């Protein structure tokens, strides 16, 4: 629960520090401007009648309508959502169960396994993309949704695993023992006691996985087919031909969705804390 800041903790700064404080304030404004100004410009020009991103001609919702009507874009968005959803589900299951098994039991190569799991998180995407492509073609697996999802899961599940592991380190080891003591089998103890305790970590890890999968470009480029092309792939192709306010509109929609999503999960987290 947040504790209110007591008024006594506010204090008057000496004059020398006042200047310093003003400078710091100015710097902070600059940092935020650097971060958010391009995004603001992007959103503003998504309402521009002109095809060009440099001159303002008038207000329109036209580009949003065009996004909606563009079947290629809609198809790619659908693909992205399918891939991200399945990837997130697979990552959450593998990451959570994996973290628990690594935490709870001792293996001969625990340490090596731990390191190997972390590698896909830092491996250059181009290396992952090429190696996966070689891997799939060697096994003569046809490129499509399956290969994209497998590829995405490879680098997404470690994020869930790491988040869950951090939570597990802070968890009272007696919790599982209490469940076992009261007659729960190890699997029921995991499902009924451990998983509910891990919910915040699973949620944030899953969110991370979803986001990563949604905007992944390079690995997807190597492992997808024309039918399973995701939104970033299509946008990248469109941008190469020339910038288009439709892309601005699309981006603005994405920002809206992201903000809504973050607010929603924050709301969920507050609810679960009650």
């Amino acid at each position: 629960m947040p504790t209110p800041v007591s008024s006594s903790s506010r204090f008057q700064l000496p004059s020398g520090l006042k200047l310093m404080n003003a400078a710091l304030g100015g710097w902070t404004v600059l940092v935020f401007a650097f971060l958010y100004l391009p995004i603001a410009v992007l959103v503003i020009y998504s309402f521009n009648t002109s095809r060009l991103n440099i001159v303002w001609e008038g207000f329109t919702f036209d580009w949003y309508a065009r996004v909606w009507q563009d079947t290629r874009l809609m198809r790619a968005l659908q693909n992205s959502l399918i891939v991200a959803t399945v990837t997130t589900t697979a990552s959450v299951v593998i990451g959570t169960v994996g973290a628990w098994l690594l935490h709870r039991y001792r293996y001969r190569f625990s340490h090596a396994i731990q390191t190997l799991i972390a590698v896909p998180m830092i491996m250059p995407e181009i290396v992952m993309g090429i190696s996966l492509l070689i891997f799939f073609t060697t096994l003569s697996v046809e490129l499509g949704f399956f290969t994209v999802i497998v590829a995405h899961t490879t680098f997404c599940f470690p994020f869930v695993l790491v988040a869950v592991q951090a939570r597990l380190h802070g968890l009272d080891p007696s919790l599982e023992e209490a469940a076992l003591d009261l007659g729960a089998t190890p699997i029921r103890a995991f499902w009924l006691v451990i998983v509910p305790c891990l919910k915040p970590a699973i949620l944030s890890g899953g969110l991370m996985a979803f986001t990563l999968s949604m905007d992944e470009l390079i690995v997807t480029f190597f492992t997808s087919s024309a039918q399973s092309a995701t939104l970033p792939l299509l946008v990248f192709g469109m941008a190469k031909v020339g910038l288009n306010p439709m892309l601005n509109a699309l981006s603005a929609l994405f920002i809206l969705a992201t903000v809504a999503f973050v607010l929603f999960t924050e709301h969920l987290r507050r609810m679960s804390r009650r």
Partner: protein
Amino acid sequence: MSAMIEVRGVTKRFGDFTAVDRVDLHVAEGEFLTLLGPSGCGKTTLLRMLSGFETPTEGTLVIGGEDVTHLAPYRRNVNQVFQSYALFPHMTVEENIGFGLRMQKVPAEEAARRIAEVIDLVALKGFEQRKPHQLSGGQRQRVALARAIVPRPKVLLLDEPLSALDAKLRQQMQLELKRLQKHLGMTFVFVTHDQEEALTMSDRIAVFNRGRIEQIGSATEIYHKPCTAFVADFIGEANLLDAELVSRNGTTGRIRVEGGLELTLALSQWPQDHSRALVSIRPEKVLVSKSRIEAENVFQATVREELFQGVLDRLHLETGAGTRLTAVVANESAILEAIHAGDQVWCGLHVDDLIVVRPA
């Protein structure tokens, strides 16, 4: 009474470290047994073997006539109260307490009745829908207790359950636990490092040291007749003095303790064929007065130091011969005389209060 728990030659090693070393122990049905010892003495490891979280390296564990040495914890008819309570944070008080019954697939109606009963027993009425984080330490403790007794285990294991409570609440819970145990007639195995807790509640106490049971017996036996220097020193306080037998006189013997003081003790407890032994004297058994005292052993001493401790007054004494002793007396108004550092005093010791103990 039949034995509810039989521990036969149980050893537990962790690598090179022997946590529990060839322990034999019988606990009767309905008994309140306390495993008492300093941290790292093996008492918790023995408890964890009884609950099934550790498997003995050697030996056999029998609970209620069934060999449970290799039985998984979830198949054992014992329940544990954990030191951290280990309440499930996402469940309400009612759900926590009902967890064991849910695992046993007890019909909902019966479960509800039994949960209500136990909530009544531990005085948690009105808190059924609270989550653990909305409870005080004492209330959490009661939930942990209720959760462990509601499945009606043969044995209840308690791992330092009162250590997180403040002193006042701890004393109150000690009495409540004892009352509850009598009411349920359940076998309790209680682990603690707090000697006062052990003395207050237990039918019998097993004193642990370095993985072994040093002595097992009732609170009074352990306190008045400690077998070893460790027990004498760990439970209560003791003046431990090296002694040499000087002469024998029928049933009593004359000994000279370190420093030179000569005392008379009962010969029956002196180890045969030994001329030297260790003698334990409880500080409160040393009678101290400014006037001469009637006792089998009477000697004079100087008060080197006085430590006022409220109810008690602790005196560090040195006899004329140079033997140092600690005495504890009731405070000055209770014994109607003030004794201070520097005073010359008379000291008395009864023959029965000199206890020969095995060295640690």
